[in-house]
C-alpha cells in the first residue's frame, strides 16, 4: 500500500518539485502551503510522514511541529523539518530536541536524496 506524505511548503516551485518526485516513487502526496493548512490536513488525513518547511505563512514550522508533538493522536507521526535558513548544528539540535526526526537544509539536497531520506525513516 502506498504511503502518505504531507508536504508543507510555501514555495510553489519547490512544493510541486517534491510532489512530482514523491509521486514518481509511489507515495500518495498531499500539499499544504502554510502552517495552518498543514495542521488541518494532518488532523484530517493522518499522513505517514510530514516534510515540514520552517518558514511558513500564518504558523511557522516550529509551531506546527510543537502542536503535532503535543497532540496524543498525532505525536507518533514522524516529522522531517526542512529549511533554507541557516541550518547550523544548533538549528538541527533544536529541531531534534523538539521532536523532529531529521532536519535538512534544502539547498544541500536533491529531491532524490530527500525521497531516499524519507524512505529510510519509514522503513
Amino acid at each position, binding site marked *: 500500500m502506498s504511503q502518505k506524505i504531507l508536504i508543507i511548503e510555501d*514555495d510553489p*516551485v*519547490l512544493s510541486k*518539485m*517534491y510532489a*512530482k*518526485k514523491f509521486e*514518481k516513487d509511489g507515495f500518495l502526496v498531499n500539499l499544504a502551503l502554510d502552517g495552518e493548512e498543514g495542521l488541518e490536513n494532518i488532523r484530517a488525513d493522518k499522513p505517514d510522514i510530514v516534510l515540514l518547511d520552517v518558514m511558513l505563512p500564518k504558523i511557522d514550522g516550529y509551531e506546527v511541529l510543537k502542536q503535532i508533538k503535543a497532540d496524543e493522536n498525532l505525536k507518533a507521526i514522524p516529522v522531517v523539518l526542512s529549511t*533554507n*535558513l*541557516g541550518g*547550523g*548544528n*544548533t538549528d538541527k539540535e533544536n529541531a531534534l530536541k523538539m521532536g523532529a526526526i531529521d532536519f535538512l537544509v*534544502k*539547498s*544541500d539536497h*536533491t*529531491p*532524490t536524496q530527500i525521497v531516499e531520506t524519507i524512505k529510510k525513516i519509514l522503513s
Partner: protein
Amino acid sequence: MNEQTEAQQLEQFKKLLEAEKQEFLAVMSHELRTPMTGVKGYLSMLLDGDAGELGPKTKDYVAQAYVANERLIRLVDQMFKTASLQEGQIKFKIIKVDLVEQVELLIHDFTFPANDKKITLSFKKPEHKVWVEADPDRLREIIAQLLSNALKFTPGDQNGQISVRIELNHSVAKIIVKDSGIGIEKRSQNRLFELFTKANLTLTGQEKGTGLGLYFAKKLAQAQSGDVWLEESEVNKGSTFIASFPLINI
C-alpha cells in the same frame, strides 16, 4: 579641523555601509537559496532521467548548469555564514579537542580529491596527542578551508605537494599547511583576509573562489582565541598558511 571632520564622517559612513552590507547578506542569502534549490532539484531530475533519457550533449549541458548552480549555492552559503558570524549568531562550543585526531579526519577526507588531482597530501603526525581549546566542528571548518585552498591553487599533474604539520610553543598549537601551488603576488597578500578579496583572479571555471573563505576562516579562528594567517608565499613556488589554537598544557 575640517580634515578631521571629514575623516570622522568617512569613518561613520564606512560603519554604516558595513552594517547595511551585513543585513543585506543575511536577507539575500536566504532569499537566494530557495530558487537555487528549485534549479538544483529540477536539473538533478533531468539528469536522473525523470523527464526521459537525455542525449549525451544535452546531458553534458545540464550537468554544466548543475555544477554552476552548485557554485552559486556554495557562495550564498558562505555569505550567510559570514553574515551570521558578524551578527554574533554563530554559537561556539569550546571544549578540549585532540588536534591530531581532527587533522587526521580532514586528511582522510582530502586524500581522495588530492589523489584525483595527482597531488601528494602528507601529514607529519606528532607522536603525542595535542590538546587545544576549540569548537571541534569550527576547528575542522577552518583547517578544511586551508586544505581546500591549497588543493585549489596547486596545479595537478606537476608533482604538486601539500604538506601538513603541527608545531607547538608554550601557549599555542599551530597547524601549518604548505603547498607547492601558484602562490600569491606580494601586492595581493595584505588584502587576502578582507571580505570579497580574491587574490587569483586569473583562475577560471570551478577554480574560482568566492572571496569569503579566508575571511570567514580567520574570523572563526579569532572567535575562539585562535588565528589564521599567511606565513609566506611566492608566485609559482607555493604558499604556507597557518591556523593557531590555544594549547592546553597537560
